[in-house]
């Protein structure tokens, strides 16, 4: 066999492996999508991926099942929680990153060390006293625990991410703006912000995604069904009934992931860049 054909065969083999693995990866998602149109009986005991007939009944029934409140309300709640949290996170992280990267001040090194160590501070170890604080503030069963953590930049990942990005911008930009008589805020707002846009966008996307997918914190801070987010509502749907209508559960699971899928395909570039430049978890 010539060297060339050998190389070609090796390449084809590598592609085949990738394609098979890729199929295994997406198959559960495809299956979930098609299962949402099946009847509950058809989900079990059939290998067929496609439903016998596409029925929207699971969507209609599932939409209004949990506790007399429909998924419209849960969606609404989720966005009321997630959108302000995301915006506030981005805002506070940008300000803090600006403070850390463009100024020299006393204690900067030590404070930055603290910021880095909070990156590795496990949520498990602070969650109980945090809960106590929020209960004292009387904000349990509201979305304020999420908003407050965002306002006070308690998501060190994003601060760190923006710091890393801002370090890459030349200080000459600030310098010349100061010479032109700009104040510190105007330097941030008019000079740096336009350049920071991709990083801010990435941070926002990930914060949106993580808050949207979050379950643990919502479970702890939110108790009443009328304030439930989609995650909590979905979990409720397998608890409430004795016989779980899995087709409805899958239908609502599909509905729940739709915003994420849309977001991903609209902003794919920022996702990939965000992951690869900052090394965040996903």
């Amino acid at each position, binding site marked *: 066999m010539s060297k060339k054909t050998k190389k070609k065969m090796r390449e084809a083999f590598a592609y085949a492996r990738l394609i098979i693995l890729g199929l295994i990866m997406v198959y*559960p998602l495809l299956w979930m999508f098609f299962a949402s149109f099946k009847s509950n009986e058809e989900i079990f005991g059939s290998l067929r991926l496609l439903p016998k007939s596409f029925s929207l009944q699971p969507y209609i029934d599932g939409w209004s099942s949990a506790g007399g409140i429909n998924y419209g309300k849960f969606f609404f709640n989720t966005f009321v929680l997630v959108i302000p949290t995301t915006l506030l996170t981005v805002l506070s992280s940008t300000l803090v990153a600006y403070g850390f990267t463009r100024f020299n001040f006393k204690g900067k090194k030590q404070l930055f060390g603290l910021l880095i160590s909070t990156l590795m501070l496990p949520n498990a170890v602070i969650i109980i006293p945090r809960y106590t604080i929020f209960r004292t503030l009387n904000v349990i069963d509201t979305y304020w625990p999420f908003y407050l953590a965002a306002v*006070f930049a308690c998501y060190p990942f994003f601060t760190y991410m923006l710091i890393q990005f801002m370090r890459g911008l030349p200080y000459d930009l600030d310098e010349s703006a100061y010479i032109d008589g700009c104040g510190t805020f105007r330097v941030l707002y008019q000079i740096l912000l336009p350049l920071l846009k991709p990083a801010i966008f990435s941070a926002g996307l990930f914060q949106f995604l993580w808050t949207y997918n979050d379950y643990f914190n919502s479970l702890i801070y939110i108790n009443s069904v009328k304030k439930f987010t989609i995650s909590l509502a979905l979990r409720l749907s397998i608890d409430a009934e004795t016989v779980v209508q899995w087709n409805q559960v899958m239908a609502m699971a599909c509905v729940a992931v739709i915003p994420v899928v849309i977001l991903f395909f609209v902003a794919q570039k920022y996702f990939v860049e965000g992951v690869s430049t900052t090394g965040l978890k996903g």
Partner: protein
Amino acid sequence: MKSSKIAKRGQKAYIYILPWLIGLLVLQLYPFIASFIYSFTNYNAFGKMNFIGLDNYIKLFTKDREFYKSIGVTLKYTLLTVPGKIILSLAVAVMLNKARKGIGIMRTIFYLPSLFGGSIAIALLWKLLFMDSGLINSILNFFRISSISWLGDPKVSLVTLSSLEIWQFGSSMVMFLAALKQVPQSLYEAAGIDGANRAQAFFRITFPQITPILFFTIIMQTINALQNFTSAFVITKGGPVKSTYMLGLKLYNDGFAYYKMGYASASSWIIFMLILVITLILFGTQRYWVFYEDEVK
């Protein structure tokens, strides 16, 4: 005059970092210390709080059978998922890096599962797929393999949960792929001239170049794995016979279901110590295998 101006400007930094400073003190440092103090009390969330010395820790280590079980389960989960995820993501990244066509679409496909992360929707999907009469067993039966009780057999339940975690290897893969693209092509050309084969090229050139990102990923994945909660809570509820009763779940049950917050704080500090020790060990190994560009070897 100029330096005084800069110094004055420096003062303003405090205004910008103020939100974080408050957050650090009130929502991070204080809870960190408070949970340590709680761990020596019988705090139960209804106001009662007496110091009981080391009782919580003594109870954890001598009376609470769940606790040892939980530590074992958590460590096993970490040992299954972190290497599984790292090896798979590295292997796929290397393959993708070589591919000339279709990298974009492939990358998307592999990344997609980690997009949904620990979401409830996917946890429920896993529960359904791995049920006794679920799709996975139907596929096995089709190939004349007898069903496995994926969620009911204490020997395999943890593996089932791990599969969900490993399935989400996409984000590490994207990171590795980016790191691989950074490896200077000239290094390979030089190796080619020296007659290195493919395996040598990988272990002598590619691997050392990506060790910093590999190290970082291992650390972050380990910290996450040690705190896993959602899949155990939703899919198996810690069962069967506590075979998936991870520390995160125990913490939640003790603290937020039974309101034994002092006791839960003690186990949260055990989680913390576990994370700390493992992270320090990993950092200790760093000098043997992690290669930083700016150091001379």
